[in-house]
Structures are given as structure tokens and as C-alpha cells.
């Protein structure tokens, strides 16, 4: 299975980033072979709709599951429509992407069944 992990660097040893839409990057890893690739998150500096854009991005890159710290309503709806499963990794302690991958493989990450918080949309438009 291809798993996307939100990270703040470009390596498997980079720290996990608990934000989804505003994560610095995504590491997309094949959980069977361990093969991985990292991508800058194109939604990082979006003025709005970061959750939607990041969701489309990971779906387009073939992710079947995502591990992040939180999913807003728009990200949840988009990932859900794309049949991408969402898993919640703990953001209260520093972990690396590799550690999150191990937790996922061990079945320790709970599945997000709904958006974890309200939308951030708004700002000054």
C-alpha cells in the first residue's frame, strides 16, 4: 500500500509534520517494499483551500492512505471522495517519518472517521 506521511523535510528521517494541508512536504512510501519518494507540498503557501489542494496532490501521486496529525473538513471530504484512508499520528511528541511508518505498519494509528477540526477558511478576502 502507498502511504503518504506529512513531514517537515525531504527524508524518511525528517520530522513528522502534524499539519496536513500546511505540511512542508509529503513522503510517499510503499509499505511493502519500503521504497519512498518525497515531494514539496504545493499547498504550503496557498492563500486558501490548502486542504483540498494537498488532498488532490497526494491522491494524484497514488497514495491509498495518509498519516497526518489532523484533517480539516475539506481535506477529509476530498480524501474520502478519492478513497484515500486517513490515519492519525500523534503530533505531541517529535517523531520521524520512519517512526510513523513503523507505527502504521504495527497497526497503532487510529483511523480518522470524520474531520478532526473546523475549517480555517476565511482570512481577508
Amino acid at each position, binding site marked *: 500500500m502507498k502511504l503518504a506521511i506529512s513531514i517537515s523535510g525531504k527524508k524518511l528521517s525528517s520530522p513528522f509534520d502534524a499539519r496536513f494541508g500546511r505540511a512542508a512536504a509529503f513522503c510517499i512510501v510503499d509499505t511493502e517494499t519500503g521504497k519512498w519518494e518525497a515531494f514539496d507540498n504545493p499547498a504550503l503557501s496557498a492563500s*486558501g*483551500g490548502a486542504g*483540498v489542494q494537498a488532498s*488532490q496532490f497526494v491522491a494524484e501521486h497514488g497514495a491509498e492512505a495518509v498519516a497526518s496529525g489532523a484533517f480539516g473538513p*475539506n481535506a477529509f471530504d*476530498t480524501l474520502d*471522495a478519492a478513497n484515500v484512508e486517513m490515519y492519525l499520528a500523534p503530533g505531541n511528541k517529535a517523531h520521524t517519518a520512519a517512526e510513523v511508518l513503523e507505527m502504521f505498519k504495527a497497526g497503532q494509528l487510529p483511523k480518522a472517521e470524520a474531520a478532526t477540526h473546523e475549517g480555517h477558511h*476565511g*482570512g481577508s*478576502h
Partner: protein
Amino acid sequence: MQIVTASGKGGTGKTTVATSLALIAAEQDSVRFLDCDVEAPNAGLFLEPVLDARKEVGILIPQVDEETCTYCGKCAEVCQFHAIAVVGKKTLVFPELCHGCGSCTLVCPENAITEHLNVMGVLEGGSTPEQIDFAQGVMNVGEPMAVPIIRELKKWIPDSSSEIEIWDAPPGASCPVVETIRGADFALLVTEPTPFGLHDLKQVAEIVKELDIPAGVVINRDGIGDSAVEAYCEDSALPILIRIPMERRIAEAIASGKLLLEAAPEYRPDFEAMLKTIVAEVSA
């Protein structure tokens, strides 16, 4: 002629100045007053119009016909606001992210998108006892975008033949303020002589300069703070048109819904002179 009152900082006295200016102007000319602070319109509390016209406004948002859509993704690609997403065999629309630009409808090769009004607020209009033609926008609670309502308010009854229009801007220096100021003939920048007043005055002064609109300054609560606003106005060649002192009786009158000129009629000549100056400046 369109005169806009703006300030940057909230609570400096935009509405206080705008409503009394409208009162003076209405003694000679036909006046239209637009309360563009659609998040919290309050000029009506002072001008007391009878509101008998109402119109729902918003933006046109896309609706995708699932039968016709081929999921090509062109709509999602063109959307600058990520308000439309195509994932697999689904096209999702996020109304609260949509700015109503219509690009998705334009680029859809299958004509699968139709547009529908997403109501964001109402316009209300009527007349005041002084026969001021009054209108305000009222944004629905929870709406994130004020600009579409302000845009519609400024277009409402466009053939209005009023000689003087007064547009009362929202506080701040972001999109809703720019939308309000755009197209005005003169900007009345209401400030207070404090570091906060000055900081925001500078931002709004930059906006009116960028829009190439002549401006003048009203210093409200004169006597508090420092002289930095005065120094800035002098450096920037911004004329100070009126100074209204910090006085408890004025604050009390405003708090009870009275107009400044009702509470302090001695400022009437200052307002008359200010209006004359603005008219002369715009007509020059």
C-alpha cells in the same frame, strides 16, 4: 461625486464623521449614503432610515452535472482558490472557498457546469428623515467574504441621481476596504493621534495613493496621544481638514445614537468648510 470615509484602525470615528457630513451635504444636495461595513453596519443607528427595499446578494457558484462531467480536471486546475476538486470519478465543490470568478464554467469542455447564486447577505435600502437615500449591506453570520456584498451594494440602484454619495468603509486595510475605496473621488481618512491610529492611517493612505484618489485627514479625539500623526500628514502632504477634540459629552452622545453635529453643533462650520474643500478639490 463620491466621498469615502476610511481609517484603517477601527473605532476612530469613520461613521461619526460620515453621518454628520451626510447631514450637512443633504441640506443643499441630494445625498446617497452607503454603509459598506457589511460585517457590522451601524450608520443606520444614527441616520435612522426607514428600510423598505431588500435584495439578497452573493456570488455565483458552480454546480457540476455528474452525468455530463468527464472528470477531465480542467476546472480544478484553473481554480486559484481550490474551491473545486476532481478526484477519481468525483467532482467536489467547496462553496466557502469559491470567489465566484466563473473560470471553471468557462473552461469546462463539456459545458457540465451551471452557476447558482450562493446567498451571502442582503442589501437594505430606504430613506432617512432628512431624505438621504440610504443603503447598507448586511453579511450573513459565518460568511468569510465581504467583498461580493460590498461590490453589489455599490452597484445597487446604479441610476441613482444623487449629487453626493458618501461611502462608509469597513475598518482595516484589506480587500473589503480596497473594494469600498475603489472608484471614489475623494477619501476622507479618519484617524486618532495615537501610534495605532498612525500605523493604520499609513496603510490606508498607501491604498488611496495607489488608487490615485485625493485624500484629506480628520483627526478625531484630538488632544490625546502624540503629534506623530500631524508630522506624518505634513510629510505626506495630506491636509488635516478637521480636528475633533476628545470630549466626554461627544462620546456620550455618540453612544446614545446621536449624530456628532446634534451633540456638538459648534462643529457645523468646520463640516461645511470641509465639504466645500472636498467639492473644490474634486471639481478642480
